[in-house]
């Protein structure tokens, strides 16, 4: 019975402590990683007004980690006055998040069809990524809401991967893009990742196939710092900090109690 009460107390204090950074935003500074910095400078060094692809690909489960990164990419693209198209190749869930992201950012001066297009989801994963690279109009006929893209001025400028200056991959798995887009077209790419795909993608960053790479929510928070706003990734990192302190504390107290009991 006593063990049960302890467990309940731990759960209660856990949720309270993790809520603290949301109630009182305390921003603990996050040291900047080189791979995040590279991602930022890659976008900064791309000329204003270039055409970018922002790929949003994550399921509802990986959204807490991936969405803030994709959003940061989107914000940065707007700040650099890129013309952009939003795509989704892997997880249809992400289309809703893409719409949410477009509603969240300040699209002042942007006109749909002329400066940006939301293309939505194409099934087929890696094969359609390859098809997109070869011939955009062969794969895509309509945008996310079913409007024909043929009349859109932006889409008339995009025919294949050669017309795209930079790829901002806000997805957890960017390897198909590296094999299908980087390898044949030598495209400039930066990528987001989640906790489990970072290690794999890091080797591609080391071999310079990815020009920059964000390490999950942590990379997202660093990127938000660089852009100068505190968004969801920052919030997640604050919670992460608190939770890790909690875990370390719990292990410490657990051991303390154990050794005290052993002594007696």
């Amino acid at each position, binding site marked *: 019975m006593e063990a049960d009460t*302890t467990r309940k107390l731990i*759960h209660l204090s*856990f949720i309270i402590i993790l809520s603290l950074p949301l109630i009182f935003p305390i921003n603990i500074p996050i040291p900047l990683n080189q791979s995040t910095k590279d991602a930022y400078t890659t976008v900064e060094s791309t000329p204003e007004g270039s055409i970018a692809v922002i790929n949003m690909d994550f399921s*509802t489960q990986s959204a807490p980690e991936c969405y803030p990164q994709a959003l940061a990419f989107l914000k940065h693209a707007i700040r650099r006055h890129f013309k952009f198209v939003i795509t989704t190749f892997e997880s249809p869930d992400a289309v809703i998040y893409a719409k949410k992201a477009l509603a969240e950012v300040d699209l002042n001066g942007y006109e749909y069809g002329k400066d940006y297009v939301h293309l939505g989801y194409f099934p087929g994963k890696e094969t359609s990524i390859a098809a997109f690279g070869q011939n955009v109009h062969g794969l895509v006929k309509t945008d996310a809401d079913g409007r024909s893209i043929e009349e859109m001025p932006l889409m008339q400028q995009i025919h294949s991967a050669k017309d795209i200056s930079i790829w901002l991959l806000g997805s957890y798995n960017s390897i198909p893009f590296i094999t299908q887009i980087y390898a044949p077209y030598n495209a400039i790419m930066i990528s987001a990742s989640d906790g489990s795909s970072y290690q794999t993608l890091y080797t591609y960053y080391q071999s310079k196939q990815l020009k920059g790479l964000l390490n999950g929510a942590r990379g997202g928070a660093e990127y938000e710092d660089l852009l100068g706003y505190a968004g969801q990734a920052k919030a997640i990192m604050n919670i992460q*900090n608190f939770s890790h302190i909690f*875990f370390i504390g719990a*292990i410490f107290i657990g051991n303390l109690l154990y050794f005290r009991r052993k002594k007696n």
Partner: protein
Amino acid sequence: MSIIRRDLPVWIAFLVGVILLSDYVFSLPALKSTASTITNWAVIVTAFSFGIGALNIIQRQSKVIIRREKYWIYSIVLIITLFGTLGIGLIGTINHPYYRIIFDNMMAPLNVTMSSMLAFFLASAAFRVIRAKNFESALLLIAALLVMLQNAPIGQLIWPGFPILGDFFITGFAAGGNRGIQIGAAIASIGFGIRILLGQEKRWFGRSE
């Protein structure tokens, strides 16, 4: 009858397994297409099997309802939601707005909430289990602490060496140990698989008659 009952399944399993394996070893186009046909069939048969699962649930829950066992009201809820979801999904396809509501506003958040429960469970387990009872568990504790300090940005603020040390634990020790476990399990699973194909391990088809 015992041929159909006992021997035929073993032979089919053997044949299918051997075809898939020889497709891996030799690259013949005919073999490749046979192998991919078989895997396709397996996916289709698996899809049929979900009906068995549903029948099992419906059978069990209706028993509860008929016998008015404890919590029979909830069983009614279950049956209604099951057929409701099925009905909306089949008649209105999965893009029907109600289906989207069920999926996006109930199933998806429930999924995420359940996986967030893991964090709670980890917290209480960390308190209870990760204790330096002997040298071995002390090692586990040290590895866990160092990797935690690597993962939390605050670790890097305390001492810049933590990330390097933690990284060494994850990509060094853990990678090595993990590789050993995986190779070992792979060897054992190959042995087990071969025994099934040869019909030495027959328990998978239940009744011995």
